[in-house]
Protein backbone atom coordinates (compact mmCIF):
# COMPACT_ATOMS: atom_id res chain seq x y z
CA UNK A 1 0.00 0.00 0.00
CA UNK A 2 1.39 3.43 -0.87
CA UNK A 3 -0.06 6.32 1.09
CA UNK A 4 -3.12 6.10 3.28
CA UNK A 5 -5.98 4.38 1.47
CA UNK A 6 -9.08 6.60 1.24
CA UNK A 7 -12.00 5.55 3.41
CA UNK A 8 -14.50 6.10 0.61
CA UNK A 9 -13.53 6.38 -3.03
CA UNK A 10 -15.91 7.06 -5.90
CA UNK A 11 -14.49 6.83 -9.41
CA UNK A 12 -16.49 8.05 -12.41
CA UNK A 13 -19.61 6.69 -10.80
CA UNK A 14 -23.05 6.77 -12.35
CA UNK A 15 -26.32 5.66 -10.82
CA UNK A 16 -29.80 5.09 -12.17
CA UNK A 17 -32.67 3.25 -10.51
CA UNK A 18 -33.79 0.44 -12.80
CA UNK A 19 -34.31 1.99 -16.20
CA UNK A 20 -35.13 5.43 -14.80
CA UNK A 21 -33.20 8.64 -15.49
CA UNK A 22 -29.59 9.10 -14.43
CA UNK A 23 -29.65 10.13 -10.78
CA UNK A 24 -25.95 10.57 -10.18
CA UNK A 25 -23.51 11.30 -12.94
CA UNK A 26 -19.76 11.14 -13.13
CA UNK A 27 -19.16 11.26 -9.42
CA UNK A 28 -15.55 11.19 -8.33
CA UNK A 29 -14.74 11.75 -4.71
CA UNK A 30 -12.35 10.43 -2.08
CA UNK A 31 -12.86 10.71 1.65
CA UNK A 32 -9.71 10.38 3.74
CA UNK A 33 -9.56 9.01 7.22
CA UNK A 34 -11.10 11.49 9.65
CA UNK A 35 -12.81 13.57 6.98
CA UNK A 36 -16.15 15.03 7.93
CA UNK A 37 -17.77 15.63 4.56
CA UNK A 38 -21.10 17.40 4.25
CA UNK A 39 -23.29 16.91 1.19
CA UNK A 40 -25.56 19.80 0.47
CA UNK A 41 -27.80 20.52 -2.49
CA UNK A 42 -31.34 20.81 -3.74
CA UNK A 43 -33.99 18.25 -2.86
CA UNK A 44 -33.76 15.20 -5.11
CA UNK A 45 -30.17 15.80 -6.21
CA UNK A 46 -29.06 12.39 -4.99
CA UNK A 47 -27.63 12.97 -1.53
CA UNK A 48 -29.49 10.07 0.04
CA UNK A 49 -28.58 7.97 -2.97
CA UNK A 50 -24.87 8.57 -2.35
CA UNK A 51 -25.22 7.30 1.19
CA UNK A 52 -27.16 4.27 -0.02
CA UNK A 53 -24.40 3.46 -2.47
CA UNK A 54 -21.71 3.76 0.15
CA UNK A 55 -23.65 1.55 2.50
CA UNK A 56 -24.15 -1.04 -0.22
CA UNK A 57 -27.92 -0.83 0.11
CA UNK A 58 -28.09 0.02 -3.54
CA UNK A 59 -25.80 -1.13 -6.31
CA UNK A 60 -23.65 1.15 -8.42
CA UNK A 61 -24.74 1.29 -12.07
CA UNK A 62 -21.42 2.26 -13.65
CA UNK A 63 -18.01 3.21 -12.33
CA UNK A 64 -16.36 2.14 -9.14
CA UNK A 65 -16.80 2.55 -5.46
CA UNK A 66 -14.51 1.34 -2.69
CA UNK A 67 -15.31 1.70 0.99
CA UNK A 68 -12.77 1.11 3.74
CA UNK A 69 -10.58 -0.58 1.18
CA UNK A 70 -13.15 -3.13 0.18
CA UNK A 71 -16.68 -3.38 -1.21
CA UNK A 72 -19.46 -1.38 0.38
CA UNK A 73 -21.12 -4.51 1.69
CA UNK A 74 -18.01 -5.94 3.21
CA UNK A 75 -17.33 -2.66 4.94
CA UNK A 76 -20.70 -2.64 6.61
CA UNK A 77 -19.60 -3.86 9.98
CA UNK A 78 -17.58 -0.67 10.36
CA UNK A 79 -20.31 1.70 9.17
CA UNK A 80 -23.46 3.11 10.72
CA UNK A 81 -26.29 4.76 8.84
CA UNK A 82 -28.76 7.27 10.25
CA UNK A 83 -31.64 7.21 7.80
CA UNK A 84 -33.69 10.18 6.70
CA UNK A 85 -36.72 8.56 8.36
CA UNK A 86 -36.29 7.39 11.92
CA UNK A 87 -37.00 3.76 10.92
CA UNK A 88 -37.71 2.57 14.44
CA UNK A 89 -39.20 -0.86 14.95
CA UNK A 90 -42.72 -0.15 16.19
CA UNK A 91 -42.83 -3.18 18.46
CA UNK A 92 -39.80 -2.15 20.50
CA UNK A 93 -39.56 0.59 23.11
CA UNK A 94 -37.14 3.45 22.61
CA UNK A 95 -34.52 1.73 24.74
CA UNK A 96 -34.82 -1.59 22.96
CA UNK A 97 -34.63 0.15 19.61
CA UNK A 98 -31.37 1.71 20.68
CA UNK A 99 -30.11 -1.63 21.90
CA UNK A 100 -30.83 -3.30 18.59
CA UNK A 101 -27.40 -3.03 16.91
CA UNK A 102 -25.71 -4.32 20.05
CA UNK A 103 -28.19 -7.13 20.23
CA UNK A 104 -27.43 -8.03 16.65
CA UNK A 105 -23.76 -8.23 17.61
CA UNK A 106 -24.62 -10.46 20.54
CA UNK A 107 -23.56 -8.14 23.34
CA UNK A 108 -24.67 -9.22 26.81
CA UNK A 109 -27.94 -7.75 28.03
CA UNK A 110 -26.50 -5.70 30.88
CA UNK A 111 -23.92 -4.02 28.68
CA UNK A 112 -26.54 -3.28 26.03
CA UNK A 113 -28.77 -1.72 28.55
CA UNK A 114 -26.09 0.49 30.01
CA UNK A 115 -24.97 1.65 26.57
CA UNK A 116 -28.57 2.37 25.51
CA UNK A 117 -29.13 4.45 28.61
CA UNK A 118 -26.00 6.40 27.95
CA UNK A 119 -26.89 7.12 24.33
CA UNK A 120 -30.47 8.06 25.18
CA UNK A 121 -29.15 10.48 27.79
CA UNK A 122 -26.86 11.95 25.15
CA UNK A 123 -29.85 12.79 22.95
CA UNK A 124 -31.89 14.00 25.93
CA UNK A 125 -34.37 11.16 26.06
CA UNK A 126 -33.61 9.49 29.38
CA UNK A 127 -37.21 10.02 30.42
CA UNK A 128 -38.70 8.36 27.34
CA UNK A 129 -36.86 5.03 27.49
CA UNK A 130 -39.96 2.90 27.74
CA UNK A 131 -42.10 4.68 25.19
CA UNK A 132 -43.10 2.90 22.02
CA UNK A 133 -42.35 4.80 18.80
CA UNK A 134 -45.99 5.73 18.32
CA UNK A 135 -45.84 7.56 21.64
CA UNK A 136 -42.90 9.72 20.60
CA UNK A 137 -42.89 13.05 18.83
CA UNK A 138 -41.22 13.31 15.43
CA UNK A 139 -38.05 14.85 16.80
CA UNK A 140 -37.88 12.34 19.62
CA UNK A 141 -38.08 9.48 17.15
CA UNK A 142 -35.22 10.93 15.16
CA UNK A 143 -33.16 11.30 18.30
CA UNK A 144 -33.75 7.64 19.18
CA UNK A 145 -32.54 6.78 15.72
CA UNK A 146 -29.38 8.85 16.25
CA UNK A 147 -28.75 7.20 19.58
CA UNK A 148 -29.11 3.81 17.92
CA UNK A 149 -26.54 4.55 15.25
CA UNK A 150 -23.97 5.83 17.70
CA UNK A 151 -23.98 2.82 20.02
CA UNK A 152 -21.55 0.91 17.82
CA UNK A 153 -18.80 3.56 17.55
CA UNK A 154 -18.46 2.94 13.80
CA UNK A 155 -15.45 4.02 11.75
CA UNK A 156 -17.61 5.47 9.01
CA UNK A 157 -20.78 7.31 9.82
CA UNK A 158 -23.46 8.01 7.21
CA UNK A 159 -25.92 10.65 8.37
CA UNK A 160 -28.96 11.63 6.31
CA UNK A 161 -30.37 14.88 7.70
CA UNK A 162 -30.27 13.57 11.24
CA UNK A 163 -31.03 16.92 12.83
CA UNK A 164 -33.58 18.28 10.39
CA UNK A 165 -36.55 17.71 12.69
CA UNK A 166 -34.94 19.27 15.75
CA UNK A 167 -35.11 22.70 17.27
CA UNK A 168 -32.06 24.86 17.04
CA UNK A 169 -30.88 24.43 20.62
CA UNK A 170 -31.10 20.67 20.54
CA UNK A 171 -29.56 20.67 17.14
CA UNK A 172 -26.62 22.77 18.22
CA UNK A 173 -26.12 20.68 21.29
CA UNK A 174 -26.16 17.47 19.28
CA UNK A 175 -23.74 19.01 16.75
CA UNK A 176 -21.33 19.63 19.55
CA UNK A 177 -21.87 16.18 21.04
CA UNK A 178 -21.15 14.69 17.64
CA UNK A 179 -17.85 16.53 17.38
CA UNK A 180 -16.99 15.46 20.92
CA UNK A 181 -17.62 11.85 19.95
CA UNK A 182 -15.42 12.38 16.92
CA UNK A 183 -12.59 13.40 19.20
CA UNK A 184 -13.10 10.24 21.14
CA UNK A 185 -13.13 7.71 18.33
CA UNK A 186 -12.13 9.57 15.16
CA UNK A 187 -14.78 8.39 12.74
CA UNK A 188 -15.07 9.52 9.16
CA UNK A 189 -18.47 11.01 8.31
CA UNK A 190 -20.62 11.59 5.25
CA UNK A 191 -23.25 14.03 6.37
CA UNK A 192 -26.32 15.16 4.45
CA UNK A 193 -27.84 18.43 5.62
CA UNK A 194 -29.78 21.40 4.37
CA UNK A 195 -28.31 23.76 6.92
CA UNK A 196 -25.27 25.57 5.61
CA UNK A 197 -24.16 26.72 9.03
CA UNK A 198 -24.44 23.22 10.41
CA UNK A 199 -22.32 21.99 7.51
CA UNK A 200 -19.70 24.64 8.15
CA UNK A 201 -19.67 24.00 11.87
CA UNK A 202 -19.22 20.25 11.54
CA UNK A 203 -17.22 19.55 8.41
CA UNK A 204 -13.76 19.98 7.03
CA UNK A 205 -15.10 19.54 3.49
CA UNK A 206 -18.45 20.58 2.03
CA UNK A 207 -19.64 19.16 -1.28
CA UNK A 208 -22.21 21.30 -3.01
CA UNK A 209 -24.33 19.27 -5.39
CA UNK A 210 -26.47 20.12 -8.39
CA UNK A 211 -29.50 18.25 -9.64
CA UNK A 212 -30.81 16.79 -12.91
CA UNK A 213 -28.69 14.78 -13.02
CA UNK A 214 -27.19 14.83 -9.55
CA UNK A 215 -23.50 15.78 -9.67
CA UNK A 216 -20.82 17.57 -7.71
CA UNK A 217 -20.86 21.26 -8.33
CA UNK A 218 -18.05 22.41 -6.10
CA UNK A 219 -16.19 21.79 -2.91
CA UNK A 220 -15.51 24.14 -0.01
CA UNK A 221 -12.75 23.30 2.46
CA UNK A 222 -13.32 24.40 6.05
CA UNK A 223 -10.04 24.64 7.87
CA UNK A 224 -11.07 25.59 11.38
CA UNK A 225 -9.15 23.22 13.61
CA UNK A 226 -10.91 20.51 15.58
CA UNK A 227 -12.02 20.38 18.34
CA UNK A 228 -14.43 23.19 17.60
CA UNK A 229 -16.50 24.91 20.24
CA UNK A 230 -19.93 26.51 20.00
CA UNK A 231 -18.50 30.00 20.09
CA UNK A 232 -17.04 29.37 16.62
CA UNK A 233 -20.48 30.10 15.20
CA UNK A 234 -20.21 33.73 16.30
CA UNK A 235 -16.89 34.35 14.58
CA UNK A 236 -16.71 36.37 11.35
CA UNK A 237 -14.57 33.70 9.57
CA UNK A 238 -17.40 31.31 10.22
CA UNK A 239 -19.92 33.65 8.66
CA UNK A 240 -17.59 34.12 5.70
CA UNK A 241 -17.52 30.39 5.08
CA UNK A 242 -21.29 30.22 5.38
CA UNK A 243 -21.58 32.92 2.80
CA UNK A 244 -19.17 31.14 0.49
CA UNK A 245 -21.18 27.92 0.60
CA UNK A 246 -24.45 29.77 0.24
CA UNK A 247 -23.16 31.50 -2.85
CA UNK A 248 -22.25 28.20 -4.42
CA UNK A 249 -25.64 26.81 -3.51
CA UNK A 250 -27.37 29.76 -5.10
CA UNK A 251 -25.43 29.23 -8.27
CA UNK A 252 -26.58 25.63 -8.34
CA UNK A 253 -30.19 26.36 -7.65
CA UNK A 254 -30.48 29.31 -9.93
CA UNK A 255 -29.80 26.99 -12.84
CA UNK A 256 -32.67 24.74 -11.79
CA UNK A 257 -35.36 27.00 -10.43
CA UNK A 258 -37.87 28.20 -12.98
Amino acid at each position, binding site marked *: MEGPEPIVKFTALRKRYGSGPVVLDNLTLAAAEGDFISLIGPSGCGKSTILKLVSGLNPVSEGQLAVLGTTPRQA*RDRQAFIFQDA*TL*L*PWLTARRNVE*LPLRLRGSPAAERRAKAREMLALVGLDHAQDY*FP*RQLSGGMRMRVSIARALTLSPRLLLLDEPFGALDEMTRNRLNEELLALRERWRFTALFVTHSVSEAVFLSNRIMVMAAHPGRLHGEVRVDFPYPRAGELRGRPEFQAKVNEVSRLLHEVEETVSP
Partner: protein
Amino acid sequence: MKAPIMKKPSSLQLWLLPVVSGLAFVGLWYGVRRWSGLQSWILPTPAEIIAAAWTERARLLAAAGNTAVGALAGFLLAGVLGFGTSMLLGVSRALRASLYPWLLVLQMTPVIVLTPIIVLWAGPGLPGIVTVTWLISYFPIVANMTQGLLSTDMNHVALFRMANATPLQEMLLLRVPSAMPYYLAGLRIAATLAPIGAIFGEYMVGNSSGGTGGLGFLVYSYNTQIKIPALFATALTSCLLGFVFVAAVSFLNWAVLHQWHDSFERADH
Protein backbone atom coordinates in the same frame (compact mmCIF):
# COMPACT_ATOMS: atom_id res chain seq x y z
CA MET B 1 -67.69 24.71 23.31
CA LYS B 2 -66.14 21.39 24.11
CA ALA B 3 -64.10 19.11 21.99
CA PRO B 4 -66.46 16.41 20.83
CA ILE B 5 -66.71 13.20 22.74
CA MET B 6 -67.31 10.55 20.18
CA LYS B 7 -70.05 8.03 20.46
CA LYS B 8 -68.20 4.77 20.38
CA PRO B 9 -69.72 1.50 21.56
CA SER B 10 -68.83 1.01 25.19
CA SER B 11 -67.47 -2.34 26.23
CA LEU B 12 -70.83 -3.21 27.75
CA GLN B 13 -72.39 -2.55 24.37
CA LEU B 14 -69.73 -4.69 22.75
CA TRP B 15 -70.86 -7.55 24.94
CA LEU B 16 -74.51 -6.86 24.41
CA LEU B 17 -74.36 -6.57 20.64
CA PRO B 18 -73.70 -10.22 19.87
CA VAL B 19 -76.45 -11.12 22.29
CA VAL B 20 -78.87 -8.78 20.56
CA SER B 21 -77.84 -9.99 17.13
CA GLY B 22 -78.09 -13.53 18.51
CA LEU B 23 -81.68 -12.90 19.56
CA ALA B 24 -82.39 -11.49 16.12
CA PHE B 25 -80.81 -14.59 14.65
CA VAL B 26 -82.93 -16.91 16.77
CA GLY B 27 -86.00 -14.91 15.80
CA LEU B 28 -85.09 -15.25 12.16
CA TRP B 29 -84.63 -18.96 12.72
CA TYR B 30 -88.11 -19.36 14.14
CA GLY B 31 -89.39 -17.23 11.29
CA VAL B 32 -87.75 -19.46 8.71
CA ARG B 33 -89.16 -22.52 10.42
CA ARG B 34 -92.56 -20.98 10.41
CA TRP B 35 -92.72 -19.63 6.89
CA SER B 36 -90.65 -22.17 4.99
CA GLY B 37 -92.62 -25.10 6.31
CA LEU B 38 -89.35 -26.84 7.18
CA GLN B 39 -89.75 -29.52 9.76
CA SER B 40 -87.83 -30.50 12.77
CA TRP B 41 -85.97 -33.25 10.92
CA ILE B 42 -84.52 -30.72 8.53
CA LEU B 43 -84.12 -27.65 10.68
CA PRO B 44 -84.91 -28.13 14.35
CA THR B 45 -85.76 -25.05 16.39
CA PRO B 46 -83.22 -23.68 18.84
CA ALA B 47 -85.39 -24.95 21.67
CA GLU B 48 -85.38 -28.46 20.27
CA ILE B 49 -81.62 -28.28 19.85
CA ILE B 50 -81.07 -27.14 23.41
CA ALA B 51 -83.38 -29.87 24.65
CA ALA B 52 -81.49 -32.47 22.64
CA ALA B 53 -78.20 -31.10 23.91
CA TRP B 54 -79.47 -31.51 27.45
CA THR B 55 -80.67 -35.06 26.88
CA GLU B 56 -77.46 -36.07 25.20
CA ARG B 57 -75.21 -34.03 27.45
CA ALA B 58 -73.18 -36.93 28.73
CA ARG B 59 -72.32 -38.24 25.30
CA LEU B 60 -71.75 -34.76 23.88
CA LEU B 61 -69.39 -33.81 26.67
CA ALA B 62 -67.39 -36.99 26.41
CA ALA B 63 -67.24 -36.67 22.62
CA ALA B 64 -66.27 -33.01 22.82
CA GLY B 65 -63.46 -33.95 25.15
CA ASN B 66 -62.16 -36.51 22.68
CA THR B 67 -62.44 -34.15 19.77
CA ALA B 68 -60.80 -31.33 21.70
CA VAL B 69 -57.70 -33.42 22.23
CA GLY B 70 -57.33 -34.14 18.52
CA ALA B 71 -58.16 -30.59 17.52
CA LEU B 72 -55.75 -29.04 19.97
CA ALA B 73 -52.89 -31.33 19.05
CA GLY B 74 -53.47 -30.78 15.33
CA PHE B 75 -53.81 -27.03 15.82
CA LEU B 76 -50.63 -26.72 17.84
CA LEU B 77 -48.79 -28.85 15.34
CA ALA B 78 -50.05 -26.65 12.50
CA GLY B 79 -49.18 -23.49 14.44
CA VAL B 80 -45.65 -24.60 15.15
CA LEU B 81 -44.88 -26.29 11.85
CA GLY B 82 -46.58 -23.50 9.93
CA PHE B 83 -44.38 -20.99 11.69
CA GLY B 84 -41.27 -23.00 10.96
CA THR B 85 -42.13 -23.68 7.35
CA SER B 86 -42.86 -20.03 6.69
CA MET B 87 -39.51 -19.05 8.08
CA LEU B 88 -37.87 -21.48 5.69
CA LEU B 89 -39.91 -20.05 2.84
CA GLY B 90 -39.34 -16.47 3.92
CA VAL B 91 -35.60 -16.76 4.31
CA SER B 92 -34.74 -17.54 0.73
CA ARG B 93 -36.31 -17.12 -2.63
CA ALA B 94 -34.70 -20.34 -3.81
CA LEU B 95 -36.24 -22.36 -1.00
CA ARG B 96 -39.57 -20.69 -1.70
CA ALA B 97 -39.42 -21.65 -5.35
CA SER B 98 -38.45 -25.21 -4.45
CA LEU B 99 -40.86 -25.90 -1.64
CA TYR B 100 -43.98 -23.81 -2.16
CA PRO B 101 -45.32 -25.82 -5.11
CA TRP B 102 -45.07 -29.02 -3.10
CA LEU B 103 -46.79 -27.46 -0.15
CA LEU B 104 -49.59 -26.53 -2.49
CA VAL B 105 -49.73 -30.10 -3.73
CA LEU B 106 -49.98 -31.31 -0.16
CA GLN B 107 -52.75 -28.84 0.57
CA MET B 108 -54.66 -29.55 -2.60
CA THR B 109 -54.61 -33.32 -2.49
CA PRO B 110 -58.00 -34.49 -1.25
CA VAL B 111 -57.57 -36.01 2.20
CA ILE B 112 -59.55 -39.07 1.17
CA VAL B 113 -56.74 -40.06 -1.16
CA LEU B 114 -54.23 -39.89 1.66
CA THR B 115 -56.42 -41.63 4.21
CA PRO B 116 -54.92 -45.10 3.76
CA ILE B 117 -51.39 -43.72 4.02
CA ILE B 118 -52.24 -41.67 7.06
CA VAL B 119 -53.77 -44.65 8.81
CA LEU B 120 -50.80 -46.75 7.88
CA TRP B 121 -48.12 -44.34 8.94
CA ALA B 122 -49.74 -42.36 11.72
CA GLY B 123 -52.11 -45.07 12.84
CA PRO B 124 -55.87 -44.95 13.13
CA GLY B 125 -57.60 -43.06 15.90
CA LEU B 126 -55.94 -40.09 17.56
CA PRO B 127 -52.68 -40.01 15.57
CA GLY B 128 -54.59 -40.11 12.30
CA ILE B 129 -57.07 -37.52 13.50
CA VAL B 130 -54.28 -35.20 14.55
CA THR B 131 -52.66 -35.66 11.15
CA VAL B 132 -55.85 -34.79 9.29
CA THR B 133 -56.45 -31.76 11.54
CA TRP B 134 -52.92 -30.65 10.94
CA LEU B 135 -53.24 -31.11 7.17
CA ILE B 136 -56.33 -28.95 7.14
CA SER B 137 -55.17 -26.11 9.35
CA TYR B 138 -51.54 -25.97 8.30
CA PHE B 139 -51.67 -24.24 4.97
CA PRO B 140 -53.63 -21.10 5.91
CA ILE B 141 -50.97 -20.43 8.49
CA VAL B 142 -48.14 -20.94 6.04
CA ALA B 143 -49.78 -18.85 3.32
CA ASN B 144 -50.43 -15.96 5.68
CA MET B 145 -47.19 -16.02 7.56
CA THR B 146 -45.18 -16.24 4.36
CA GLN B 147 -47.00 -13.25 2.92
CA GLY B 148 -46.34 -11.46 6.19
CA LEU B 149 -42.64 -12.29 6.14
CA LEU B 150 -42.39 -10.94 2.62
CA SER B 151 -44.29 -7.75 3.46
CA THR B 152 -41.65 -6.41 5.81
CA ASP B 153 -40.96 -2.71 5.41
CA MET B 154 -37.93 -2.34 3.16
CA ASN B 155 -36.60 0.51 5.28
CA HIS B 156 -36.42 -1.80 8.23
CA VAL B 157 -34.73 -4.43 6.12
CA ALA B 158 -32.16 -1.82 5.09
CA LEU B 159 -31.57 -1.07 8.77
CA PHE B 160 -30.85 -4.71 9.47
CA ARG B 161 -28.66 -5.13 6.43
CA MET B 162 -26.65 -2.12 7.56
CA ALA B 163 -26.20 -3.62 10.99
CA ASN B 164 -24.81 -6.71 9.26
CA ALA B 165 -27.55 -8.79 10.76
CA THR B 166 -27.38 -12.47 9.87
CA PRO B 167 -30.29 -13.82 7.83
CA LEU B 168 -31.41 -15.60 10.98
CA GLN B 169 -31.44 -12.36 12.96
CA GLU B 170 -33.25 -10.56 10.18
CA MET B 171 -35.80 -13.34 10.29
CA LEU B 172 -36.23 -13.57 14.06
CA LEU B 173 -35.88 -9.97 15.11
CA LEU B 174 -37.42 -8.22 12.15
CA ARG B 175 -39.49 -10.26 9.75
CA VAL B 176 -41.16 -12.46 12.32
CA PRO B 177 -42.36 -9.63 14.59
CA SER B 178 -43.58 -7.57 11.67
CA ALA B 179 -45.40 -10.61 10.26
CA MET B 180 -47.24 -11.25 13.52
CA PRO B 181 -50.52 -9.65 12.35
CA TYR B 182 -50.47 -11.99 9.37
CA TYR B 183 -49.54 -15.00 11.44
CA LEU B 184 -52.29 -14.29 13.91
CA ALA B 185 -54.85 -13.91 11.14
CA GLY B 186 -53.66 -17.31 9.89
CA LEU B 187 -53.93 -18.78 13.37
CA ARG B 188 -57.44 -17.42 13.64
CA ILE B 189 -58.41 -19.23 10.46
CA ALA B 190 -56.71 -22.36 11.72
CA ALA B 191 -58.53 -22.05 15.03
CA THR B 192 -61.85 -22.29 13.27
CA LEU B 193 -60.60 -25.11 11.06
CA ALA B 194 -59.12 -27.24 13.84
CA PRO B 195 -62.34 -28.51 15.44
CA ILE B 196 -64.07 -29.22 12.14
CA GLY B 197 -60.82 -30.69 10.92
CA ALA B 198 -60.77 -33.05 13.88
CA ILE B 199 -64.40 -33.95 13.28
CA PHE B 200 -63.61 -34.62 9.65
CA GLY B 201 -60.61 -36.63 10.77
CA GLU B 202 -62.77 -38.76 13.05
CA TYR B 203 -64.96 -39.27 10.03
CA MET B 204 -62.06 -40.43 7.93
CA VAL B 205 -59.58 -42.19 10.16
CA GLY B 206 -61.07 -42.31 13.62
CA ASN B 207 -61.87 -45.43 15.53
CA SER B 208 -64.12 -45.88 18.47
CA SER B 209 -64.22 -48.81 20.75
CA GLY B 210 -67.69 -49.46 22.07
CA GLY B 211 -69.23 -46.28 20.76
CA THR B 212 -67.25 -43.56 22.54
CA GLY B 213 -65.84 -41.62 19.65
CA GLY B 214 -65.55 -37.90 19.28
CA LEU B 215 -68.04 -35.45 17.82
CA GLY B 216 -67.37 -36.79 14.33
CA PHE B 217 -68.59 -40.17 15.40
CA LEU B 218 -71.70 -38.61 16.92
CA VAL B 219 -72.35 -36.58 13.78
CA TYR B 220 -72.24 -39.71 11.70
CA SER B 221 -74.30 -41.71 14.06
CA TYR B 222 -76.97 -39.06 14.75
CA ASN B 223 -77.15 -38.45 11.04
CA THR B 224 -77.83 -42.07 10.14
CA GLN B 225 -80.25 -42.32 13.03
CA ILE B 226 -81.99 -39.16 11.85
CA LYS B 227 -81.66 -37.62 15.31
CA ILE B 228 -81.54 -34.21 13.76
CA PRO B 229 -81.90 -32.05 16.88
CA ALA B 230 -79.09 -34.04 18.46
CA LEU B 231 -77.09 -33.59 15.27
CA PHE B 232 -77.49 -29.82 15.54
CA ALA B 233 -76.63 -30.03 19.22
CA THR B 234 -73.41 -31.72 18.15
CA ALA B 235 -72.74 -28.92 15.71
CA LEU B 236 -73.39 -26.44 18.51
CA THR B 237 -70.89 -28.26 20.68
CA SER B 238 -68.38 -28.13 17.88
CA CYS B 239 -68.96 -24.38 17.55
CA LEU B 240 -68.48 -23.89 21.26
CA LEU B 241 -65.25 -25.82 21.06
CA GLY B 242 -64.21 -23.65 18.14
CA PHE B 243 -65.00 -20.52 20.13
CA VAL B 244 -62.59 -21.61 22.80
CA PHE B 245 -59.90 -21.87 20.15
CA VAL B 246 -60.79 -18.54 18.60
CA ALA B 247 -60.90 -16.85 21.99
CA ALA B 248 -57.45 -18.20 22.76
CA VAL B 249 -56.12 -16.81 19.48
CA SER B 250 -57.82 -13.47 20.08
CA PHE B 251 -56.18 -13.27 23.45
CA LEU B 252 -52.83 -14.07 21.89
CA ASN B 253 -53.50 -11.42 19.25
CA TRP B 254 -54.17 -8.86 21.92
CA ALA B 255 -51.16 -9.85 23.97
CA VAL B 256 -48.79 -9.68 21.02
CA LEU B 257 -50.07 -6.63 19.22
CA HIS B 258 -51.91 -4.23 21.47
CA GLN B 259 -48.89 -2.24 22.56
CA TRP B 260 -47.67 -1.31 19.13
CA HIS B 261 -49.89 -2.32 16.26
CA ASP B 262 -52.25 0.06 14.51
CA SER B 263 -55.15 -2.39 14.69
CA PHE B 264 -55.16 -1.62 18.41
CA GLU B 265 -54.66 2.13 18.06
CA ARG B 266 -57.50 3.78 19.85
CA ALA B 267 -58.75 6.04 17.11
CA ASP B 268 -59.28 8.92 19.52
CA HIS B 269 -62.37 10.22 17.80
